[in-house]
């Protein structure tokens, strides 16, 4: 079974802190994704990556950056956390050379920024 793990289930940070959310997948998938999920807004794509050291902006990249130094790991970075970044963050991965294939999700990280 594909397994996607996220470093924390719950995280509480203060405004202005630098926050790292880590995601690791164990199935050698090429594609990895970061979403945030807010009530009434569904899933919104923040960043995605087709390969190591590659990244593409999603729909809402502002205030975020990403890093993919190894194929299995995709990190989401909040350079200076703000209260409007309080949300559920979901990481996903998918196989193949495109980004249309079935996605496998981690359990999510619920981030609270005070």
């Amino acid at each position: 079974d594909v397994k996607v793990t996220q470093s924390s289930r719950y995280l509480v940070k203060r405004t202005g802190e630098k926050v790292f959310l880590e995601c690791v997948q164990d199935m050698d998938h090429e594609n990895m994704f970061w979403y945030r999920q807010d009530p009434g807004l569904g899933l919104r794509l923040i960043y995605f990556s087709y390969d190591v050291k590659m990244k593409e902006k999603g729909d809402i990249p502002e205030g975020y950056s990403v890093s993919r130094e190894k194929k299995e790991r995709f990190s989401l970075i909040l350079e200076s956390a703000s209260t409007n970044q309080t949300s559920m963050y979901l990481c996903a991965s998918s196989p193949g050379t495109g980004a249309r294939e079935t996605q496998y999700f981690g359990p999510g990280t619920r981030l609270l920024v005070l």
Partner: protein
Amino acid sequence: SQQGEEDPQALSIQEGENATMNCSYKTSINNLQWYRQNSGRGLVHLILIRSNEREKHSGRLRVTLDTSKKSSSLLITASRAADTASYFCATDASTGNTPLVFGKGTRLSVIA
């Protein structure tokens, strides 16, 4: 951007009844997928239907796709309390290499 829109936003039924959720989208697609999300958890893939398919079954799930109407439906038969979750459709564009776009989901409550 292209987006699947689920309907209804919320649905409440009794255990044993069938649940039907609909998804409409705007542009041509290669495939449409349905995912399930239990409260506070990640999404789990349920079923994928390709643009040249009209119907697909998986256990108690039945998915239909009408590309002329740009719509899909997910039917869960003989629902159980454990089916309580949010259900999302996800579409891909038939051109380019853009990621899946997820709808906002239907929240299903199955009452025992």
